[in-house]
């Protein structure tokens, strides 16, 4: 009995002393933190992808609260709904931001771009790029080792084993830009998703002269400049033998796609131009092989492009 009493008293005393210390410490060393930071943090997706440009979600929350304005701040993962919630919490106006998506600007599939050698090193684009120009005659294009796939935290980009080119799953892509950073060839670009996911872009980054580029890949941009002349909105620029469509100016008229002799310009998710061809050829790879039939069926679900017959 005595023993139990001693144990209870001594333990109780220790507990009391420690509690007192904890209480004093918590009061004395308390750091004030804006409660709104925690609130904002709660609505954020907590993916900690860094796509907003801040170190993780807490960093973004902190920045939102402290800046006093939401201009230029956008959570690509949560998108507009999350930004609206943050704006609610902070009593600010959310900046308008267009939904963006990662776009792979290379169509150098096994069929389009013949292999000239065989890479036998570690399966990493960064390593292959540090070694040499790649397995094909095009030293600008996709190396196909899948660094972008490894970098994606949302399972939104996958290698197509048939083409050897990564494909973006629009539904999952948050445009965080991790793949852009991972790609040593700077092939992937974050572009506006476009209305109904319709967008036109140059699916090539080859800066070689026309003849060299054409020899290396059947769908390479040869820098002929036809698209530049055709574009009624001056959205296309030609630099270093490579055309680029400025998404801000592009009105998706698809005139450039028509004139491109190489089928390099891809118009994605547009309705079939002429219902002549029955095939519902969907998406980039096929579209680029046969540029004249670029009739991409509108997809209800924005899934990874698949060739469906």
């Amino acid at each position, binding site marked *: 009995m005595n023993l139990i009493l001693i144990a209870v008293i001594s333990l109780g005393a220790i507990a009391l002393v420690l509690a007192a210390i904890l209480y004093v410490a918590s009061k004395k060393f308390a750091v004030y933190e804006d409660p709104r930071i925690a609130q904002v943090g709660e609505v954020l997706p907590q993916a900690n992808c860094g796509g907003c440009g801040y170190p993780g979600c807490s960093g973004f929350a902190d920045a939102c609260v402290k800046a006093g304005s939401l201009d230029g701040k956008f959570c690509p993962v949560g998108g507009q709904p999350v930004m609206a919630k943050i704006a609610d919490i902070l009593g600010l106006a959310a900046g308008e931001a267009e939904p963006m998506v990662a776009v792979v600007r290379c169509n150098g599939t096994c069929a389009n771009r013949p292999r*000239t*050698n065989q890479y*036998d*090193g*570690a399966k*990493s684009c*960064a*390593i292959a790029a*540090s*070694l*040499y*120009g*790649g397995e094909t*005659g095009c*030293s600008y294009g996709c190396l196909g080792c899948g660094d972008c796939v490894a970098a994606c935290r949302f399972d939104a980009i996958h290698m197509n084993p048939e083409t050897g080119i990564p494909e973006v799953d629009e539904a999952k892509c948050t445009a965080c830009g991790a793949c852009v950073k991972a790609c040593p060839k700077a092939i992937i670009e974050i572009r506006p998703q476009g209305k109904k996911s319709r967008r036109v872009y140059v699916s090539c980054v080859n800066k*070689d002269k026309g003849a*060299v580029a054409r020899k290396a890949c059947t769908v390479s941009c040869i820098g002929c400049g036809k698209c530049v002349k055709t574009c009624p909105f001056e959205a296309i620029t030609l630099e270093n033998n490579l055309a680029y469509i400025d998404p801000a100016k592009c009105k998706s008229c698809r005139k450039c796609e028509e004139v491109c002799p190489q089928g390099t310009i891809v118009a994605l998710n547009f309705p079939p131009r002429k219902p002549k061809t029955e095939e519902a050829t969907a998406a980039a790879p096929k579209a680029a092989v046969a540029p004249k039939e670029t009739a991409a069926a509108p997809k209800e679900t924005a899934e990874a492009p698949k060739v469906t017959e």
Partner: protein
Amino acid sequence: MLKTFSIGGVHPHENKLSAHQPIITAEVPAKAVILLGQHIGAPAKPIVAKGDVVKVGTKIAEPAGFVSAAIHSSVSGKVAKIDTIVDASGYAKPAIFIDVEGDEWEETIDRSTTLVKECELSTEEIVKKIADAGIVGLGGACFPTQVKLCPPPSFKAECVIINAVECEPYLTADHQLMLEHAEEIMVGVSILMKAVKVNKAFIGIENNKPDAIELMTKVASGYAGIEVVPLKVKYPQGGEKQLIDAITKRQVASGALPISTGAVVQNVGTAFAVYEAVQKNKPLFERVITVTGKSVAKPSNFLARIGTPMKQLIDACGGLPEDTGKVIGGGPMMGKALVNIEVPTAKGSSGILIMNRKEAKRGEAQTCIRCAKCVSACPMGLEPYLLGALSENGDFETMEKERIMDCIECGSCQFTCPANRPLLDYCRLGKGKVGAMIRARQAKK
């Protein structure tokens, strides 16, 4: 007990198939392509234009900066164009294309084979002549020689070390050069000693070349201050830091210049080129190249003009074998695999190694079993297993702390790895990234 470096090292099969093959003068190519970036540092600036007539030895490009080197025409003829060519890396690089007509040399070049022993030039004149001749380190690193001969004033050179180790398997160019031009090399070494104002030189030769050791020792006795040091065979003895350690027992501290140990290391081929440049007025436009491989019909050593397509040299050895899997510019441990065999030779081309498909294919990588063999093999005392894993996970900050920048990329770790892991691939990637990080940090300051 023979000298060697103190940490790590491996013993690859030597496979010196072309040993004792006399140096054959290769045919002058019909078209020469001379790359502008044949050295470490800025690519040279061309000083000729399309249509210009050049002779053998005409300077066609000027150094573009302090760390850069002049380039001379290796053929006579007309400049066809200045354009890009896909080099060994698969990237387009600027080069001067020359259509060959005849073989007319610059009159200033002394083409006789008589040995010129005396050199009355001053230190500055020697260094200037070496710079004018466009000489770079011929061991493979291609560091401009004149830069190495002018160390920062805070360091004092104490000795010249001549790298005649040739620790890369297969290659025999330096070995054969020593056998055929021992006297010239000695004069070249004496000139180098004069250039850095020292009176001691060591020539390090691995003892798998006993004939070269014997001959060089005999010839060296006629020259003051030159000593031949036989070394125990171990890769990578030809690494600058390893060679200094092996011969002087001094180790270059992490991040320090090799000159901090008082040693100026030059390749034996460089010594020969220095002799030719200073005594014979002959700029660097040809060099000895080993063409070898187990499937090659006739492994040979060639004296080839720079800018000769590699294919021509391979053809001279009996052509590209049927089952060729890999063509390597340089040796098997540090050489570069070629994307095509049309690429021209450069100043740093010490050999062309042809491997069949079976030899060429890497084994399948397995998981690391933590056997620590890479740690034992690393000549820099690093932990390749750890660096490889860190690089794979993208933890470059920790890699820097683990001293990735000390890595000399010798490949001993990957050579020894029982699990066939691509350790050096990942270490190189990390080294590149960490190097960029360090440069970015310095730029900020």
